[in-house]
């Protein structure tokens, strides 16, 4: 977790191999992500699911085809089996009834749930969520929190959530790293962070308007600025 613009999404893109780090290395299953060949990277990505902020559904396909797409591309399963798999995934996110809709007909929360079903299509071992809670109404928010928690439990996934929604994330996370300006500013279980004695961590966790991160963007003296002309 961390404030906007601290490099959370960048970190996620580094983990998934979409960006290359200038220095350092990222290991997944004892493989250095950035030294893999393109083929091996793609093989690794089949074991990773990722949920994008916008859902990233393919707009020229129906919900059903969106979820069937990775299965069709990576396996040679017969269409009847694909149908069963797709319906199972859709049922898991509660949208089996929406299978014939186009992505443009979905609400934001539904699109995110479909994207989740798609990320699960290839039964990944690890799933990454990029800001899953941003811009959701309370009901969708509740649904998403519950979904992420139950999927994580029942499928025994490793989940990485990038977010700045403190309550929702703290409710389901086992361990939280707080990022600030590209550095780790605090870490621990949710309880440890709530009771942390760092002023910055407290400000972030409580959502206080002023503190170590000042309300004002750095500027010259107010009075001087007003009288400058």
């Amino acid at each position, binding site marked *: 977790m961390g404030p906007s613009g601290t490099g959370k999404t960048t970190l996620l*893109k580094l983990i*998934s191999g*979409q960006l290359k780090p200038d220095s350092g290395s990222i290991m997944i299953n004892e493989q250095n992500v950035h030294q893999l060949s393109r083929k091996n990277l*793609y*093989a690794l*990505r*089949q074991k*990773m*699911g*990722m949920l*994008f*902020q*916008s859902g*990233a*559904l*393919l*707009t020229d396909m129906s919900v059903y085809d969106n979820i069937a*797409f*990775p299965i069709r*591309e*990576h396996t040679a399963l017969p269409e009847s089996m694909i149908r069963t798999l797709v319906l199972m995934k859709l049922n898991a996110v509660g949208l089996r009834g929406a299978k014939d809709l186009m992505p443009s007909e979905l609400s934001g929360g539904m699109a995110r749930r479909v*994207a989740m079903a*798609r990320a699960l*299509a*290839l039964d990944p071992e690890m799933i990454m969520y990029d800001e899953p809670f941003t811009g959701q109404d309370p009901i969708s928010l509740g649904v998403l929190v519950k979904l992420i928690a139950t999927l994580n439990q029942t499928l025994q996934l490793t989940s990485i959530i990038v977010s700045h929604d403190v309550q929702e994330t703290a409710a389901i996370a086992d361990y939280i790293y707080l990022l600030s300006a590209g550095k780790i500013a605090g870490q621990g279980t949710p309880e440890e962070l709530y009771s942390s004695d760092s002023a910055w961590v407290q400000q972030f966790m409580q959502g206080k308007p002023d503190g170590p991160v000042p309300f004002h963007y750095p500027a010259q003296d107010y009075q001087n600025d007003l009288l400058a002309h």
Partner: protein
Amino acid sequence: MKFFHSIGQISLQSLAKLGRSTLFLSAIINSLGYPLLRPKLLIRQIYSVGVLSFWLVAISGLFVGMVLGLQGVYTLSTFGAESSLGIMVAASLVRELGPVVSALLFAGRAGSALTAEIGLMKTTEQLSGMEMMAIDPLKYIIAPRFLAGFISLPLLAALFSAIGIWGGYIAGVELLNVDVGAYWSQMQSAIDFYDDIVNGIIKSIIFAWIITWIALFEGYDATPTSAGISRATTKTVVNSAFAILLFDFLLTALMFGTS
């Protein structure tokens, strides 16, 4: 100092862009086998790139041909050479106007749409989403569009020329009473299949290559914001138009220059 600084900056940037686009092109060419195995993907793209440009090209071809017919008669009649109208109409259409005008229309209609589509897919993370599903967007998204452009533009150019020649016939023969036999026979005796028609087709294949390359690259390389997409779309149209006219000159000099 500032002047040289900006010149240096611009040339380095354009060099980097040229490098990126060349890598992009070679990656597309490597992926071309994929859409050939998925005719469905290809047919969908031929529809949106080719079929949707059909009426634009057909109607423009008709009017360009009719204007050529009218102007041709007015000019040629001062030399008493109306009977050469067929040669004039067919030669200018088959060699130049067919490939060039259809390519310019194609850049405006299909090229800009391709750029906007790819740019929007990038902005909405659809391309990254594919990457994360371990599906190469170059194969699935870019290569079919490239191939579709490659197939569609020569066909559109042939349609443009054929319809234009017919338009010239309407204007010259039907309206201004040029002799029917002279129109067709003079045309046939002057237009060579290999030198004129095949060369025209080769031109439009090269234009198709240039336009789809520029359009797809601008979309793929666009800054993922609405301003970025609109800038990329404009660049596609402007750069394609420049490239078409430049290459038309070079190709004409190469093909017709020595005879």
